[in-house]
């Protein structure tokens, strides 16, 4: 491995850009993501930065059970993220639909049906520590030696 690649790996592991998309949640998980940004958990000290622009992002946090309005838009947002990219499902809703996975509801979970999900953080809502751990554990795997992995 070249030195340049090593430097790239190190810098990338300290500079993870996160975008989050709420595809119809109850706001519980949104608040936990917000708590990650707050001084108590302070996600930025680990080199994770939150944007709302998918074109700047490496990691997409998917929140909420997928409502019909989001079915095509979720895919569009995913396509706008440049490679390397990874999606993390936050909370029970994108994993299973949780309490919305009942007959008669309009939601159509899981989010895996629409975009590839690399990690799932179960919980209703998950704790900020759990979200943080998931991002920190999944991001280096995706970004490490990205150039060498290319064909």
């Amino acid at each position, binding site marked *: 491995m070249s030195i340049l690649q090593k430097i790239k790996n190190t810098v990338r592991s300290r500079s993870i850009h996160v975008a989050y998309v709420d595809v119809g949640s109850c706001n519980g998980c949104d608040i936990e993501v917000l708590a990650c940004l707050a001084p108590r*958990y302070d996600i930025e000290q680990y080199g994770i930065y939150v944007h709302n622009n998918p074109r700047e992002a490496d990691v997409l946090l998917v929140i909420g059970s997928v409502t019909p309005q989001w079915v095509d838009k979720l895919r569009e947002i995913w396509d706008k993220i440049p490679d390397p990219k990874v999606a993390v499902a936050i909370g029970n809703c994108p994993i*299973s639909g949780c309490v919305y996975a009942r007959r008669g509801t309009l939601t159509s979970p899981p989010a895996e049906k629409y975009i590839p999900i690399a990690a*799932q953080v179960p919980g209703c809502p998950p704790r900020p520590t759990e979200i943080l751990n998931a991002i920190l554990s999944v991001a280096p795997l995706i970004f490490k030696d990205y150039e060498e992995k290319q064909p």
Partner: protein
Amino acid sequence: MRSIIYYLREFLRPEWIRKFFFAKTAPLETPSYFKGYPTLTGNECTACLSCMMICPAPKAIAVLRTRDGWEPEIYPGHCIRCGLCVEACPEGVLSSGRILDVTRRDGTAFWSWYHLQVDDNLCMRCGNCCVSCPVNREIDPQLAGSGTSSSDEVIMRVEGGRVRILHEEKCTGCKTCETQCPNRAIRVARMVEGVQIGEAEV
């Protein structure tokens, strides 16, 4: 050129390097007393299914048959960590954080009973429910043999051309009557109420 020097100077500052490569605090661990997913305590499960019945999230908990007995299994993708199953379990099979400590301190409990309801429009008065009910058969063996009963101690019996519920409180919630009814006229509902321990004994 000047901008390159500016960037190099900025990124070679020790403070910047320290801030970039080292976190201020170690990643926070979740405290043990927080409400987490219910875990097994090792107590024996009696398969009363109280946990499944009180669970508000669909498919979050299932009591499964294992080699040595029964065992509740939690599915984290569905569980909302409300802790109701931990509170409802009479045997203390599940535990999660401080839920049970709080329940003990406050003296709260779940009080549950079964409510039987017969829809007279659907009921065709065949009496299958009264005959098949295992509690009925135990109270009045004559009922199991002849299909008729004059005892007032049974849970329900056909009287005056319609099913009458006499002792709802004796129902154990097995739902045999519900499965035996050809018209789905009888319904067994489990009612749950949160109470203070003092009230529950009254």
